[in-house]
Structure formats: C-alpha cells, structure tokens
C-alpha cells in the first residue's frame, strides 16, 4: 500500500498530464460526431454574449458595405417583381426561383465566423426564442452558407459549408445532374462538387445551384460557378472545383430558411434524408 502511494506521488505529474490529455482528446472526439450536446461550443450564453458584444462594435465598420449589398438585393427583387407582373399571363412559365415547397425566411446576424480551420462553424444572434431549430438552412442573398446545428434560447451555431463533414446536395443549373458539395480544407472560397456523372455537360464558368433532393434548401438557390474540373480514378465521375459567390470571410447578415413541409415529407418517407 505504501508503495502504491509512493508511486502515485512520485508520478503525479505524469498522471495529471495523461488525465488532462485524455480529457481534451475526449472533447475533440466529441465534436467530430454530430448532434451530441457538449458545453464546449460557441452557442452557449456566455460566449454568445461576448461574441454579440464584440460584433456590435465591429458592425459599424462594415455598415456601408452591408448597405450596398442590401441595395443590390433590393434591385434584383424589384426586377423579379416587375418581370412577374409581365409574365403572369404567360403559360408554362418556369423559373428556378419558383420554389416548390413552402419556405419561411428569418433574418439574423453572424456574430462569429471561422473559415481557416478544417471544421468551421458560425454563430448567429437568433435562437430558439425566434423559432430556430436544428437543420434549418442558412443563406445570404448571394448563396448558401450552411445548416443550423445547435441552438439555445438566444444563439445558434451553424455548420459552415467549409466543414469536412458537410454534405449539401447541389446540381448544375443547366442540366439536372447532381452531386454532393464537400470541402477539402484548403481555400475558403473554393468548394468541391463530387459524384457528378460523366455524361453531365460541365463547362468552366457554369453556375452551381442547390438541388431539389434536399429538405433543407429550396431548389435553385445559387452556390457558385465552376472554376475547373477533373475526372476521378474510375473515369466515371467529375470532381468539380466551385468558386463560391459568397465571400465566406465576410458574411454579415444572413437568412434562415425553414421548410414548413419538412415534417410532413419526413413522416411520409419515414426515413432519414441523407443530404447535409
């Protein structure tokens, strides 16, 4: 017994080291699996409070740019509005912005944004009190940002599309060939569209939009344009580098999309959807 105590006291630093190392590796592994509650996250009220405080100050320096972005969006919406009045009488009118389901949009502000790590998250200043739930889509006027991951009463955490495990269903705007959007962790403005079949007409500069197979995003939201593309080893699928329309390093205000039909569709299909 005496020897055991002596051993413990002599090696207390090594034991403490192993214990602390194990604890931090445990936290790391926990964040690598989705949808587990842990308190090490920027969507708790303490860190959320500090982030919203600092971003309040920071926002003043970006006001002009945000205003310009809003003006641009207003201009586009007005153009669509006038065109709608013109085309109401035309039959068989289809538009990619003519969303299939019923979607509800909420506005929020990004208070913390990561883009330099392998797995990136954003924190936004709306939470359960505003009706936000996990698995809602997050977009800006220019394109897709990510998916809500975890919420508390006042803040939410969003998985950015710059996350090694994010999978968003996307397709070519010209044809309906679709694939999954992933990120290889290198350039925060370039993401990869994989598993596009070889018969798809892929051209540099073509637009990539969200696909209709997702319950999170409406079909036809812009994502980016094709930068370049390669064939994979089996010569049957394209891997496409997509340059995002959004500047992921400077986001500001965002919209959160709720699919009001989601529960109905899920209960009908009775299976988990595999897009994320």
């Amino acid at each position, binding site marked *: 017994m005496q020897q055991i105590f002596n051993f413990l006291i002599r090696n207390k630093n090594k034991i403490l080291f192993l214990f602390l190392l194990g604890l931090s590796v445990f936290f790391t592994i926990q*964040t690598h699996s989705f949808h587990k509650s842990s308190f090490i996250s920027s969507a708790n009220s303490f860190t959320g409070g500090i982030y919203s405080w600092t971003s309040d100050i920071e926002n003043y320096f970006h006001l002009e740019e945000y205003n310009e972005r809003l003006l641009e969006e207003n201009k586009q919406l007005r153009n669509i509005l006038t065109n709608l009045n013109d085309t109401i009488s035309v039959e068989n009118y289809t538009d990619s912005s003519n969303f299939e389901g019923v979607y509800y949009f909420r506005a929020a502000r990004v208070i913390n944004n990561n883009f330099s790590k392998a797995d990136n998250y954003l924190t936004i200043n709306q939470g359960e009190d505003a009706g936000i739930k996990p698995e809602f889509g997050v977009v800006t006027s220019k394109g897709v940002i990510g998916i809500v991951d975890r919420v508390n009463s006042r803040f939410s955490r969003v998985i950015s599309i710059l996350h090694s495990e994010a999978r968003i269903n996307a397709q070519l705007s010209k044809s309906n060939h679709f694939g999954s959007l992933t990120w290889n962790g290198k350039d925060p403005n370039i993401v990869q569209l994989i598993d596009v079949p070889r018969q798809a007409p892929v051209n540099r500069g073509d637009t990539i939009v969200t696909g209709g197979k997702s319950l999170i995003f409406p079909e036809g939201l812009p994502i980016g344009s094709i930068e370049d593309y390669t064939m994979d080893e089996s010569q049957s699928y394209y891997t496409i580098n997509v340059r995002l329309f959004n500047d992921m390093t400077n986001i500001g205000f965002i919209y959160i999309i709720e699919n009001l039909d989601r529960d109905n569709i899920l209960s009908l299909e009775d299976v988990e959807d595999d897009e994320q």
Partner: protein
Amino acid sequence: MGYINPYLYILFVLLYPFNSNQSLFLIFSFLLGLGIDIFEDSGGINAAACVVAAFVRPNLLRFSFGISYDHQNLRLGSTPFGARLTYILLIVGIHHFVLFSLEMFSLNHILLILKKTLYSGIFTVILSTLSLSIFSKKYR
C-alpha cells in the same frame, strides 16, 4: 487567413515561472487551452496541445539552456539569443504539430498538417520573439 494563424497565447507556456509547481502549471495550461477552444468551437485541440507543450517544457529547458536552468534563477530576457530561439522553436513546433494533427484527425492529411505547422509556426515564432524583446524588462 488560410494557412497562417499565429497562436500567440503560447507565450503563457513559454513564460510561466520556471521554478514553480509543475502540476499547477499543467492545470493552468489546460484551462487556458480549453478557454480558447470554447470560443473557437474546436473541441479540445488547443487544450491538448497546451498540456503537451507544458509537460515537455522542463526537458526542453534543460536541453536549450543547459546548466543555468538547474540554478532555478533563469531569466528568459538575459539568456543568449540562440538558446532562447531554440527553446521557442521547439515548444512552438511541438504545440502546433499536436494542434493541427488533432484538428485534421486523420493521417491522410499529414502533408497538410506539416504545411500548416510550418507556416503558422514561423509566424508564431516571429511574433513571440518580437513581443518577448519588446516587453522584456531591462536589468541593469
């Protein structure tokens, strides 16, 4: 920024009093790393890297400063520049390598891990050497 992110909080591990309690030092390093992880949404990678750096620090001190470390009255500002640089380089290298390995969490990205370690490490070393020389007290 893409590859280059200096982690200046390593200064804590570099500067913590050399002759104080090792267990307390380990715990403080862990808490510092964990605090950064909470804000960065990165699980426990900074905590792990800090704890490893703190644990190997006595060995590195002995390695870079030799006999004067055992006298327990070492001041980082009054050491030769070469020895100080070796000490900073080793600690930053170990810290960053653990940090980025845990962040990537797969051996497929070993090249990316080494690249990030190199680029960020260079910047951390430059910034910590600069801040050490700016904020060091002058002993006359």
